[in-house]
């Protein structure tokens, strides 16, 4: 459109968005689709995994584990049958990038799934889509049907000996099911509660068999990597984070939406250049990265780069790529209460630190907010957060207090203003 958009990339996984009819497999094929699969069926599993490793692709669901290493682990096991799971249970508040891919380019994701299945010789795959995404469920079901007719799914894929049966599973409204083991439990028809790790899903996943589980965005990158080569993908982005990332930009910005950007751009660039800044000339009060489980940073930190390592060095993470902008009209404690209320509701209740911790944090935050808290409550809040981080059973409880921890660090004043004996006591504590 204009020079402002020069940080936008439209050639990797968003290249077809808005250009093809998601309900037409022919549209996808005419745009060069399923070429990567044709190429992949002529490659060995090791060759495919090597390309993914060369790309340095990291899991786009939030944890950022190297995809090639995960695939290698499932490739090298002798245990059969093996399973594949596509995690489309996008439920982290502020994230809607998987919805964009599912609804606008379903075959790209399917092609990625089939390539992975062929590489690792997997014959059964599940696509677990959250129950609220009815439109996506319909589109993916249709896409599987079309791909089966063309011989890309089912028996003898592309006239080879590979077979793959794909099934869509619908979630039923539980955020925890985005956690890989909770998701696997849900696929098995149970309440979605996480399992102990290790063993990891690559060793013991669906039906206690080796399982490759990846996010929608991760699978959607695979066709590009096979077509262009892992090295080409690795050249995009930074040395420590290769490729592009879909950013879900929301909150108080002029142009919210999903944007594909190379790693290395700053959070501020995304907000200003792509989002058009905050409406009505208001100032940014704070920005939450990743979603409800992500850190809240002040405007002074907006020059931070989207990069796994640079962010990890600062003790924060971008999660699955949400950027939520909150302007000066809003009270910090109201936002934190919303976030903690979310986790109180979504905690699965399996472990005590998470089940009770979220409740207690919410209570303490309310106490601080209404001005009745003392320095003792603040210390208790800090202890509670660190206990949850170190003792919660799964990622949900470990990440739930992130908003509190980061605001304690970056918005100390807001807390100090609400606690009467803060300045007196804090010196002695």
């Amino acid at each position, binding site marked *: 459109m204009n020079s402002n958009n020069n940080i936008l990339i439209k050639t990797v996984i968003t290249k077809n968005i808005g250009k093809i009819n998601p309900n037409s497999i022919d549209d996808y094929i005419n745009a060069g689709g399923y070429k990567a699969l044709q190429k992949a069926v002529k490659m060995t599993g090791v060759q495919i995994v090597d390309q993914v490793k060369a790309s340095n692709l990291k899991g786009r669901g939030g944890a950022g584990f190297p995809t090639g290493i995960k695939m290698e682990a499932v490739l090298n096991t002798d245990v059969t049958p093996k399973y594949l799971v596509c995690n489309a249970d*996008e*439920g*982290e*508040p*502020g*994230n*809607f990038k*998987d*919805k964009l891919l599912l609804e606008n380019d379903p075959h790209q994701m399917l092609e990625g799934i089939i390539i992975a299945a062929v590489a690792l010789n997997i014959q059964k795959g599940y696509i677990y889509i959250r*129950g*609220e*995404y*009815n*439109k996506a469920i319909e589109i993916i079901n249709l896409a599987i049907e079309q791909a089966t007719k063309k011989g890309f799914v089912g028996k003898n894929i592309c006239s080879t000996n590979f077979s793959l049966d794909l099934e869509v*599973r*619908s*979630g*039923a*409204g*539980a*955020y925890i099911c985005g956690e890989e083991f909770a998701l696997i439990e*849900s*696929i*098995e*028809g*149970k*309440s*979605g509660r996480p399992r102990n790790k290790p063993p990891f899903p690559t060793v013991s996943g669906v039906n206690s068999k080796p399982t490759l589980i990846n996010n929608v965005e991760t699978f959607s990158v695979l066709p590009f990597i096979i077509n262009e080569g892992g090295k080409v993908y690795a050249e995009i982005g930074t040395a420590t984070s290769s490729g592009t990332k879909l950013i*879900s*930009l*929301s*909150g*108080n910005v002029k142009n*919210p*939406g*999903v944007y594909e950007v190379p790693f290395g751009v700053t959070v501020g660039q995304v907000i200003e250049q792509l989002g058009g800044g905050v409406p009505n000339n208001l100032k940014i009060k704070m920005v*939450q990265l990743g979603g*409800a489980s992500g850190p809240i940073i002040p405007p002074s930190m907006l020059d931070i780069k989207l990069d796994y390592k640079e962010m990890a060095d600062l003790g924060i993470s971008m999660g699955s790529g*949400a950027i*939520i*902008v*909150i*302007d000066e009209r*809003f009270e910090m404690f*109201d*936002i934190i209460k*919303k*976030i903690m*209320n*979310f986790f109180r*509701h*979504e905690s*699965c209740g399996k472990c005590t630190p998470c089940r009770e911790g979220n409740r207690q944090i919410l209570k303490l935050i309310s106490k601080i907010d209404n001005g009745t808290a003392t320095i003792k409550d603040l210390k208790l809040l800090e202890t509670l957060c660190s206990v949850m981080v170190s003792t919660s059973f799964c990622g949900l409880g470990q990440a739930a207090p992130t908003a509190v921890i980061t605001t304690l660090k970056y918005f100390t004043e807001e807390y100090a203003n609400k606690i009467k004996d803060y300045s007196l006591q804090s010196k002695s504590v």
Partner: protein
Amino acid sequence: MRKGIIALFIVIFLTIYHKKIKLREETFTMQLLQVIEKHGRTPEDLLNILLEYQDTVKTNYLSEQDIKLVATELNIPENKVYSTISFYSLFSTTPRGKYIIQVCSDVPCYVNNSVNIVNELEAMLNIKMGQTTSDGLFTLEFTSCIGCCDIAPAIRIGKELYGNMNKENLQKIISEYRRKK
């Protein structure tokens, strides 16, 4: 004499009513059995069965009788079916309206005035969050993020998502649903 006639009417009425209820229960049972037949009887089919069946129930919930039937058919304990239902927020064990209106309660919608949407809906429907309208048409609920942050504030009615909500388009949408009935 008059008392006798009234008593007779009551008896006739109760018999018809009872039969009607029984008939309704039987059609529900048939419907549930059909759904089970379609998905299969292994424990891993449980979620799909419950989701699809609840959709066919006008009052959008799963009754005690449904739970018992599913447990027997799939050969799993009743309490496991119940615990699964109570775990997932898309299920309900109490009757709800025909159309469930869910308002997103998370931060991206909150900073785009979802509070106003809640107030508007409560006023329009004359119920509070969590309640069902007396005509059984609408139930108001909160929901966690529904992935519509770019069109916040967003709501979900039944299976449809609506974004960029304000008083005007809310009124339009609600009256459309009222017309549909």
